[in-house]
């Protein structure tokens, strides 16, 4: 069952890679976070730890509901076309994502995560991190960088929870607050950039106004 949910996380990440529009990207992020919520809930159920339930609830509230809503609001407010502006087209992105997954599988093996379930979990976590980084560097719009960072954060959460049975409870809570605040701040930045330059294309930002 957990394998299925982990692969669901991976599938949602691939969905983000082929998304060409902002709403689709945000929706896929929502799916990914929902699968993350299911993973945490299931591991809380299996290890019978109460704080995992709280973390799962926090994921559900912040990453599945509030952050996608806030991102959608920002995207709506900026009010430019929601094409992401792909440096690498969708097909090539998908192939790159696949190669990144393979690399993370090899990497997980060299890290010494034996067989079966844990290998799969580490592979999925690492590839989510890599694909998040890939999303950040291969999309033009500044809002995608925010989403890419959130994807990487999801990957790090997965990685931590499978390498060391999760971070300490208070660290986890602090990270949630951090992520939440950073989304708001970066959203504000993107909004300001859009106001100043009337676009949020990252590759045009080097031509600064005097």
């Amino acid at each position: 069952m957990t394998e299925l949910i982990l692969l669901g996380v991976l599938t949602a990440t691939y969905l983000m890679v082929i998304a060409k529009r902002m709403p689709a990207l945000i929706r896929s992020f929502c799916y990914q976070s929902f699968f993350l919520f299911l993973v945490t809930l299931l591991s809380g159920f299996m290890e019978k730890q109460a704080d995992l339930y709280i973390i799962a609830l926090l994921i559900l509230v912040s990453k599945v509901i509030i952050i996608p809503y806030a991102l959608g609001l920002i995207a709506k407010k900026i009010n430019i076309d929601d094409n992401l502006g792909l440096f690498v087209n969708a097909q090539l992105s998908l192939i790159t994502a696949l190669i990144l997954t393979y690399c993370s599988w090899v990497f997980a093996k060299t890290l010494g995560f034996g067989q079966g379930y844990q290998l799969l979990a580490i592979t999925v976590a690492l590839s989510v991190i890599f694909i998040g980084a890939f999303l950040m560097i291969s999309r033009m719009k500044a809002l995608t960088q925010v989403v890419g960072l959130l994807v990487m954060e999801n990957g790090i959460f997965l990685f931590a929870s499978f390498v060391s049975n999760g971070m300490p409870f208070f660290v986890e809570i602090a990270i949630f607050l951090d992520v939440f605040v950073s989304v708001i701040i970066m959203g504000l930045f993107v909004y300001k950039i859009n106001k100043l330059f009337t676009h949020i294309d990252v590759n045009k930002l080097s031509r600064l106004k005097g």
Partner: protein
Amino acid sequence: MNIVLIFLQLIFFLLAAPFLSGLISKIKNNLRMRKGQSILQPYYNIKKLFLKGEVVSETASWIFRVCPFIVASSMLAAAMLVPVFIFQSPAHQAGDFLALIFIFSLGRFFLALSALDTGSSFGGMGSSREMFISALAEPAFCLVVFSVSLQSGSTDISSFSGMHALTVSSVFGAITLFLVAIAETSRVPVDNQETHLELTMVHEAMALEYSGRSLALIELASYLKQMILFFLIAQIIFPIGLPVFGNLAGLFFWSLWYLARMIIIAIAVALVEVSVAKMRLFRVADFLGFAFILGIIALVCAVLGV
């Protein structure tokens, strides 16, 4: 006894295939707050078309006349490759899962050829698009075949139908096959069966020149293809083993059980069709590329044994 059961399987396919199409269109219309046509409308359509005369273009060659028979008989042959009421598929010596894919391609090839035959510009457009879509859909289909056969140890369809446990690999295989089935049965994100809008139609453009009996055969073939694909998805995602029954009542219940599983798939297809907008043609490459990636995940899971 086996001969009788094989005939029953053929009758089951022929009788139930139009029903699934009618059901999907009924669900779609009801979800859009419309009354919609009757579930039995596909049967009426086929009956009407069989009774009508046929108009054939003067420039058409023999390929145009012979194509509906090839298309319909290839789908019937494909229907004989899946096991429904007996342990082995009726034509199991003749071919396996891979043969099914190539028999599908045979029908598609002749349909595309006949669309080119009359020289109508719509036909050429439709067949080139169909070839584009199928070239992308077939690799994903093949990956599903490989992942399923790795699990069951044979490419014979009956051996994977005999599986009882649901694995991660079969879940992903079924999702892949679902996406492929949407593309192959010309459903909404890829094509639209309801419209004859010249810029978007794919399958309808190929069948545009046909009328009367030939059109009835082609429509029947597309219903059969849809039912075979739904049947395969149902076998992968709801593994119930091979049929066991003693008498006629048992047989009746088995066919109801098969039909119930396919109705679940049909409902899923209808929901997808209602909730998704039709894609641009070049976006289909991304859609089927995604299906291909899911197929690779299924294959890797099958190799890892999860």
